[in-house]
């Protein structure tokens, strides 16, 4: 912690950190490389030539189940979960700013939702639908199951946001004659917008990758993680890696998009954030 030179401890910790990053990214990198195996290549090294054979293989319907369908279902489900998570978390976050009867109970319910093992949520919803003789489907029961996982994260982010929120802005808006709706639209929303990207990212990716909560709730049509799991038991070609590369690439693209969006928002806010002293 001395300002001048680096201690020997620093170099050891830095080495440890690099190893940790290798541990995180190493395996997935090998998968990306192996997904470009030649047509005769196997699941392990050495590379037997290089090709995009296995990616093409992925899009032939019969070869590996229903990749296209499950991919599109997972994206649509993720988008719906994202939208619902955003609206419900912001709305609930606003409510929790004032004390109300039952708020403590609801807060613990949200925490319980994080702690209860996913397979229980899956089993419970599956049983409930079974007893009511309703069909489980990805846009109903699986949607609900995913929300029990994404909403607590959304809510906790909103708590963090509103705990740091300066109420003076809202009071100023109200004093200037803004209606509650206008205050929210023109004052609160722009201020919390960058954090909402975080909520959206949680909502989409947690749903997109969710396995256990989809297991008994998604009905007769698979979501992507279920499809991938199915493939692990009966596919022994690098097509599995091609799928891994594609879906990981897609996830990384989503993360990147969110990072860029939040950077842009922050920059814009810095530019337009305050007009104090500009005489407007």
């Amino acid at each position, binding site marked *: 912690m001395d300002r001048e030179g680096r201690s020997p401890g620093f170099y050891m910790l830095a080495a440890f950190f690099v190893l940790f990053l290798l541990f995180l990214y190493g395996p997935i990198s090998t*998968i990306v490389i192996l997904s470009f195996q030649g047509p005769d290549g196997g*699941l*392990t*090294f050495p590379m037997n030539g290089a090709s995009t054979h296995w990616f093409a293989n992925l899009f032939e319907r019969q070869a590996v189940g229903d990749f296209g369908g499950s991919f599109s279902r997972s994206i649509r489900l993720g988008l719906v979960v994202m939208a619902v998570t955003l609206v419900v978390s912001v709305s609930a976050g606003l409510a*929790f700013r004032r004390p109300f009867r039952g708020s403590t109970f609801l807060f613990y319910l949200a925490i319980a939702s994080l702690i209860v093992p996913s397979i229980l949520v899956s089993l*419970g919803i599956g049983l409930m639908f079974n007893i009511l003789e309703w069909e489980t489907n990805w846009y109903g029961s699986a949607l609900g199951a995913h929300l029990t996982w994404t909403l607590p994260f959304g809510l906790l982010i909103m708590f963090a946001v509103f705990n740091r929120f300066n109420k003076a802005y809202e009071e100023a808006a109200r004093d200037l004659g803004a209606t509650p709706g206008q205050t929210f639209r023109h004052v609160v929303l722009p201020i919390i917008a960058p954090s909402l990207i975080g909520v959206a990212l949680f909502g989409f990716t947690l749903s997109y990758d969710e396995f*256990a909560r989809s297991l008994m709730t998604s009905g007769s049509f698979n979501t992507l993680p279920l499809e991938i799991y199915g493939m692990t038991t009966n596919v022994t070609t690098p097509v*599995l890696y091609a799928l891994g590369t594609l879906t990981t690439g897609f996830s990384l693209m989503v993360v990147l998009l969110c990072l860029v969006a939040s950077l842009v928002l922050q920059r814009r806010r810095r530019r337009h954030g305050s007009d104090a002293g500009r005489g407007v």
Partner: protein
Amino acid sequence: MKPFARFSPGDATSYVQVAPLAVIFALFLVVPIATIIVVSFWDYDEFRILPDFIWDNYLYLLTSKVTLATYVNTVKYAALVWALTFSIGFTVAYFLAFHVRTQTWQIVLFVLCTIPFWTSNIIRMISWIPFLGRNGLLNSTLVHLGVVDEPLEFLLFSDFAVVLAFVHLYTLFMVVPIFNSMMRIDRSLIEAAVDAGASGWQVIRNVILPLTKPGIGIGSIFVVTLVMGDFITVRLMSGGQSSSVGIAMSNEIALLQYPAAAANAVVLLIVVLLMVAAMLRVVDVRKEL
């Protein structure tokens, strides 16, 4: 923290705003758990589940030797994974919080640690296969270097692989809350300790560690509950050779023995809640929120 405030006269706006959240939790968390509890007392045959009130599911579960062995195995995973994720997570967070000097680098390195979290867990498990397999990278390297004569068999489809995958997947759940706690530590406390003659190690043990306890608590709750309820990691990485409570449940589900699975689920839920309660006794995480 506002949600803990006491009752104040009915605020209709709050209820309208919070209603969607309450309805979703009621429909998809409370009612399903209640359903599990009810069904755990039901009877079943090969084809359907029959409403009843019997204790047989619990009796069978609690007197079976397999149950105990399954729980022992699952708790073993949880303990091992907890110890490893805590050690690695604490070290990584400590490096980021106290040894990386500029905020930009802190953010960049932190984001690098979190990105894999947003990708598919199943793919991340599969990604160990070309690395650990019989003809995998690690084995061929070891054989090539002459460290071992024959490929090591225990690398893939073993307890080793299960724990490795868990650590790979869940260390992040430790890094984030611990890093968050560390960033809130007043740096003058550390300077004071150094001025008073504390060594680097003493600063970590007597200043940083106690002040990071809430973060450690949150991370521990995540890791332990995730491992206790898991079945896919154990199934994939052990190649179906190891058992866990989740696997037992999913086997019963596959055989349509829903009441048995439900009884198993109730017992698992009680065990997990007891473990969380025990962790909350050690650390108060509420002030962290």
